[in-house]
């Protein structure tokens, strides 16, 4: 298999609002090949018609599913399901068992962040990010 130098193979688990948005914008760049996994096929309706990647309807906590999605070849895995613990489990499977280079987990509850950083998983918490941004806006405007 010949791969261009900049080509990235990206697996996105969970095709909710964030997962779908990310899948759409990542697949717009020609150099990326994107696979989206979700338990419900209705979730894939969120993808644009221009989405050029693959869709897999399955539960990603079954390691068989990740294997079928060729996780061994993945450069990036993003876990964006609506369950924090599922995200952390998938992230760890990707990192520890399949040695995926770059693993990011979405975290809804920021109170769990400490745990996940302890487990060596890179996390993004929309709640914390929004709070920081709102705080910045408030401070900028002043009173």
């Amino acid at each position: 298999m010949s791969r261009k130098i900049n080509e990235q193979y990206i697996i996105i688990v969970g095709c909710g609002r964030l997962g779908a948005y990310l899948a759409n914008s990542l697949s717009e760049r020609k150099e990326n090949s994107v696979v989206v996994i979700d338990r419900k096929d209705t979730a894939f309706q969120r993808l644009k018609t221009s989405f050029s990647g693959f869709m897999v309807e399955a539960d990603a906590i079954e390691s068989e599913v990740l294997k079928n999605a060729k996780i061994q070849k993945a450069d990036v895995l993003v876990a964006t399901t609506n369950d924090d613990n599922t995200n952390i489990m998938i992230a760890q499977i990707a990192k520890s068992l399949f040695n995926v280079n770059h693993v990011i987990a979405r975290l809804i509850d920021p109170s769990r962040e400490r745990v996940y950083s302890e487990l060596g998983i890179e996390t993004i918490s929309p709640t914390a990010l929004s709070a920081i941004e709102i705080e910045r806006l408030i401070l900028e405007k002043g009173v």
Partner: protein
Amino acid sequence: MNIFIIGGKREVYFLVKSFTSKGYQLTIINQDVEFCKKMSRQFKITVVNGDGSKPFILDEAGIAYADMVIALTDSDPDNLVICQIAEKIYGIKKTFAIVSDPENIKIFMQLGVETVISTSYIISSIIEQRAIVDDIKNLTHIGEGNVALMEVDVTNDNPVIGKRIHEIHFPEQAIISCIMRDGKTVIPTGKTEIMEDDHLIIISELKVQSEVLKIIKGKVD
């Protein structure tokens, strides 16, 4: 011993009953308010109502003092996270999780959970064995559930009677480790002959178990 039981339903009741009678100290964390009320009325244990996969709930419940953590929620990822928080942050060595998906047994162990049990796997394998043959006695599983240790009676219609062990073509992953004959123990060699009413003690890999039984008992429905 201070034991934490997180999640679970009816089985928690029986575990608590058995553990308290042995004098262990118990804390249960459960999301079901009614269940929590019932347990706290009935037993002298600490009951915490909440999501046990959240670090602050575990912290408030005093997990730092636990000797053993048992995760029984019906979500595999929750059970993993509970055990990992216990082990990685609080240094609790004894962690126990149940999983629905048997595939997760290996994964959980690689990710640091000490003991992992899949109830669906255990139930299905028991049913399977019952369905295969009624002649197995005292079946146990060893070697992380991959090896079966079983006792099989040789009855008069079995094709192995009168054969020497080297004449029986067993799969490589199985061995007759011992024969109980007239109350005596015979350690078999290749020359040992199988006789009627022998009790064979067989160690085999799980995947060749039905093949082994087929060889001993002849045709199996």
